[in-house]
């Protein structure tokens, strides 16, 4: 079995939604766009002032495990996600991350900025 991984970080300014909602949308989107029987693990954290929320899923079955420490009220959030799967090409994992980013932005009406976006002032 050959393993591939893909990971990415973002920030969202003043998101008016619960971090757990973002995590659920993100992981469900990843699950939809990876091969049905892919063996691996998708993980994500959402860090906010005073705490953080964590989510993970093996995608089989479509189980999501979310846990939170602290209470989110408002402000910027920092997000990191990693996908590690066996016998799935890295390009497919990167595409799944992009699609999940798009789904979160569309459903939560927010903008997920990567460090690259911020360096270019977008």
């Amino acid at each position: 079995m050959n393993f591939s991984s893909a990971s990415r970080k973002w920030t969202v300014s003043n998101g008016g939604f619960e971090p757990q909602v973002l995590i659920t949308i993100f992981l469900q989107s990843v699950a939809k766009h990876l091969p049905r029987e892919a063996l691996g693990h998708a993980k994500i954290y959402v860090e906010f002032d005073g705490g953080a929320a964590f989510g993970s899923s093996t995608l089989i079955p479509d189980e999501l495990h979310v846990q939170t420490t602290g209470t989110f009220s408002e402000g910027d959030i920092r997000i990191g996600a990693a996908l590690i799967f066996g016998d799935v090409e890295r390009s497919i994992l990167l595409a799944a991350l992009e699609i999940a980013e798009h789904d979160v932005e569309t459903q939560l009406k927010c903008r997920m900025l990567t460090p690259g976006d911020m360096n270019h002032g977008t």
Partner: protein
Amino acid sequence: MKTAAPPKVVAVYGFLGSGKTTLMLNLARKAAAANRKSAVLINEAGDVPVDGKLFTVNGLAVREIFGGCICCSLGGDFIETLKAMLGIPKLDYIFVEPSGMADARQLFHSIQKHLKVPISRIMLLDGPRLPLLLKAASGILTRQFEAAEIVLLNKVDAMTRDRLAEAQELLVSFGIRGRVGHISAKNGLPKGLEEEILA
């Protein structure tokens, strides 16, 4: 002068998504409740520290090794980091989490060779995915089984009685005839098992 005992090293390993992080967190919380201090050494497969952040927000000292695998390309970094952690004063436990694709047999051999410290070896299996894992990742699992002291079938709360019986039969047909504990790491371990691991 009496020298303080070195921390107990507990490795929790298993395939990706088997529940290693959840179990380690539970064990560390249990240790903390008994006024025992823990630190964590993890090998994150990517370069984003998801597990590291989870341990950190739960008040644990964390050392991370990113990318690759500590059983092969990063073995030297791992040994050096663990060696340094063994010298941390007043530390009771070091929980080690190899990446889910690690060759556990090779990793533990390397620890024995270079550090000569005893290491408790707990292997986790994802119960609901067991049939698929035994089919698609049998090579990795065989090496992981061979290195295990304790094998735990995790996420049994998500399995029916029939699925659990099927999993037991699969393990026997795979050659696993020793004791296999049934746990739900997210709901906590049976008391005796926690004590056995932390003893």
